[in-house]
C-alpha cells in the first residue's frame, strides 16, 4: 500500500546532480511531493530531502537506483513516524481584515503562527508545522481571502544524536580499503 516516505539523499556537491536524482523518479512516473536541498552538518556533503507517496517495494527499488548514482553517498528512506519534520508556510492577507475584527488575530494566535511583516496594504503571516497544519491555517485565513500562499519543501531530521552519514562514511572508507 502506498504511504508517505521521506527519502534523504546525501551527496557530493556537484552541478547537475539534482537532475540525475529527479530522473530516477520521473522515469518511474513517481511524483515528487516536496523537495528540499541543503548542506548537511558535514561540510561539503549535501542533503536532498524528498517526499513521495509510494509502496514499500517501489521505495526500496528507488533507493537502490539512487545509490547507483556515482556522486551519491547514501540514501535513506523513512516513514513519517521515524523522523521529526517541519514545513514552513507564508500567507499574505489584506490588512483591512486585521482591523475589521479580531478574528484574524485570534486565528494567528491560536495556530501558533506569527506576523512577519505588516504594511498598510497587506500582512504576511508565517507558520511552521506539518502540511495538514499549515493547510488548516490556510483554510481558516482563506475565509477572508489569502492573496498569496507558499509552502516550503519538507525539512526532516532523525531522532539519532549524530548525522547518520558520519557512520556510513567510516564504513565506506573501510570497504574501499578492502576492495583494493
Amino acid at each position, binding site marked *: 500500500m502506498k504511504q508517505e516516505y521521506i527519502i534523504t539523499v546525501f551527496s557530493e556537491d556537484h552541478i547537475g546532480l539534482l*537532475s540525475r536524482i529527479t530522473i530516477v523518479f520521473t522515469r518511474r512516473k513517481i511524483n515528487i511531493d516536496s523537495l528540499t536541498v541543503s548542506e548537511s552538518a558535514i561540510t561539503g556533503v549535501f542533503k536532498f530531502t524528498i517526499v513521495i507517496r509510494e509502496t514499500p517495494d517501489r521505495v526500496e527499488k528507488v533507493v537502490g537506483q539512487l545509490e547507483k548514482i556515482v556522486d551519491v553517498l547514501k540514501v535513506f528512506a523513512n516513514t513519517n513516524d521515524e523522523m521529526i519534520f517541519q514545513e514552513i508556510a507564508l500567507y499574505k492577507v489584506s490588512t483591512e481584515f486585521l482591523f475589521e475584527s479580531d478574528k484574524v488575530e485570534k486565528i494567528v494566535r491560536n495556530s501558533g503562527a506569527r506576523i512577519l511583516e505588516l504594511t498598510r496594504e497587506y500582512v504576511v503571516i508565517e507558520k511552521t508545522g506539518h502540511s495538514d497544519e499549515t493547510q488548516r491555517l490556510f483554510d481558516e485565513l482563506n475565509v477572508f481571502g489569502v492573496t498569496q500562499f507558499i509552502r516550503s519543501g519538507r525539512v526532516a531530521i532523525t531522532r539519532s544524536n549524530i548525522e547518520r552519514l558520519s557512520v556510513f562514511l567510516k564504513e565506506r572508507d573501510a570497504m574501499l580499503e578492502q576492495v583494493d
Partner: protein
Amino acid sequence: MATQRISGSEAVILSLLEEGVDTIFGYPGGAIMPIYDALYDYDQKVTHYLTRHEQGAIHAAEGYAKVTGKAGVCFATSGPGATNLVTGLADAMIDSIPVVCITGQVSSPLLGTDAFQESDVVGITMPVTKWNYQVTSADEIPEAIAKAFHIANTGRPGPVLIDIAKDAQFGMFDFEYKKCTKLRSYLPEHPVDPFQVKAAADIINAAKKPLILFGHGVMIAHAEAELKELIEKTGIPAAWTLLGLSALPTDHPLNVGMLGMHGNYGPNIKTNEADVIISVGMRFDDRVTGKVAAYARQAKIVHLEIDPAEINKIIKADAPVLGNAKKSLRMLIDNVNTNSHEEWIKEFRACDKIEYDKVIEKDIYPTQSGLTMGEVVRIASEKTNHDAILVTDVGQQQMIASRYFKFSQPRSNVTSGGLGTMGYALPAAMGAKIGMPDRVVFAMAGDGGFQMTIQELGTIAQYNLDIKIIVLNNNFLGMVRQWQQLFFEKRYSFTEMKNPDFVGIAKAYGLASQKVTSRDQLETAVQEMLDHNGPYVLEVVVEKEDNVFPMVPAGASVSDIILEP
C-alpha cells in the same frame, strides 16, 4: 611526473595515453577541432578511426570494449555529433559496456545561448550514462578523464561522457596526471561477505535439481575459469543468457544452452522444475524470465551479483551474494561439495532431443528449397572451427545465430542485448576486429539492420578492416513480420522491404562481395569469403517467411515455451 604547460586539447590526448588508450573512434567537427588538431601530432601513439557517423563510432567503441575488456573511446563534436551518440550510450548503459566519450562543446561564454551546434549534451545524456561531466576550464581535464576511466571500467561498467567547451580545449595550464583509484561516493563492488557465501553454499549443497544461469557479468569479471570450476565441481548444468554466450565453451558437457524467449527448450522448461537456481552475473531480464509471476516459483534463488540494485529487483533472492563474480565464485567453489547430477542432466538431454527433432534439424540441415538462416550460421561456425568472433545485429538473425553459432573462447559474442539496437552489427564488428585483429570476425545482419548503418562500409574499406559480413536477406523486417504473423493475423504492416543491390553497393565501396541464392553455392561462397584476404560482403537470400522457434510468447511463462506455431 613533472608538470608541463600545455593546452587543454593536448591534455586530453596525454590523459588518454596515460590511461593506455591506443585506439579512438570518432568524427570531427567545429567544437572539437582543437582536440583533433592535438591528435594530429600523436598519430604514432594512437590510431584514430574516422567512422561515417557518430553512431558508428560509439558502436565500434562498444565492440572494441566487448572483445578486449578495455574501455572503448569515442570522439564527437557538439550538437548533432553528440546527439548521434545517444543510441550507443543507451546501448552501452543497459549492456554494461565501458565506453568513454569525449564531446566538443561551444565555448563556455556561449553556453545556454542557442549557439551554433550547441545542445545540452550533459542534460540529454544523463539518463544514458553512468556518469557525465562538463569541462569549462582546461585544468579540469586530467581529473575528469581519470575519473571517467575509473567509473567506466570498475564495478558494473558503463558509458561515461565528458563534454569539453572549446575555450577549455584552447586554455593553457600546467599538466599533471594522476590516475583515479578511489571516490568516496562510489563503491565499485562490495567486499564479498563470507556469511552470504556460506548461506549460498548450504542451499547449493542440499539441492537435488540445481540449475546455474550465467550472464555477461561472468566475462566482465574475467571469471570464466571460476565459473567452469564451479560447474565441474558441483556437476550442475548451466545455461547462458544472450550476453553470457561464450563465457563457457558451447560444447562443454554441462552447458545446456540459452535461456529466454528464443533460447533452448531444456533450460526454459527446467527453470520451472529446478529446486535451486544459481544466477551468476545476470539480471533476470524480461526476455529471460517471461512472466515473472510464473518464473521459478518452486526454486530457491542464489544470486551472485555486483550491483546491489539488481538484487531482488525482479526475482527475490533467498541467498544473495554481493560482489565481484571472480571473488564470489572463488569463495563459493571452496564452500560447495563435489557432486554430480546425472539423472537431472539426462532430463535436459531429453529436452535437447525433442528440440533437435522438432526445430533444430530443419533449421540447420533444411530440406526445403529456400535457404535458412540456421544453415548459414552453422556453416560459418563450422568453417571457422567454432573459434570466430560473432557480431550480430538485432532480430531473427541475431536469435538464430545465438542459437547455432558455437564458441570455444570467451568474449567471442558481440550483440546488442538489452537495447536491441538495429544497425549495431556492422560498426560493432569494426571495433571487434580492431580489438582482436588476429581473429576471424563475422558481422551478421539482416537486410533491415544492415541498411541502418550501411555507410560504415566506407570505414571498413578505408581501413581495410577484414570483417566477414553476412547479410541474411529475406526482404522483410523478419522478427516484426514473425510477430505480425503469429499475433497480428498476418497483417504485415510496413515490414516488407525493397532492397538495393547489396553486391553492387559493396563493390562501389571497393569491397569484395557475392550473392548466394541456392544451397549448392552456399558452402563454397562462405569458403571464398574466408579465403579472401580482406573485408567481404556475402549476401545470402533466405526463405522469406521463416520463423524463429522455440519461442516463449510475450507474457507467457518460460514453461509455456512453444516449439512450433
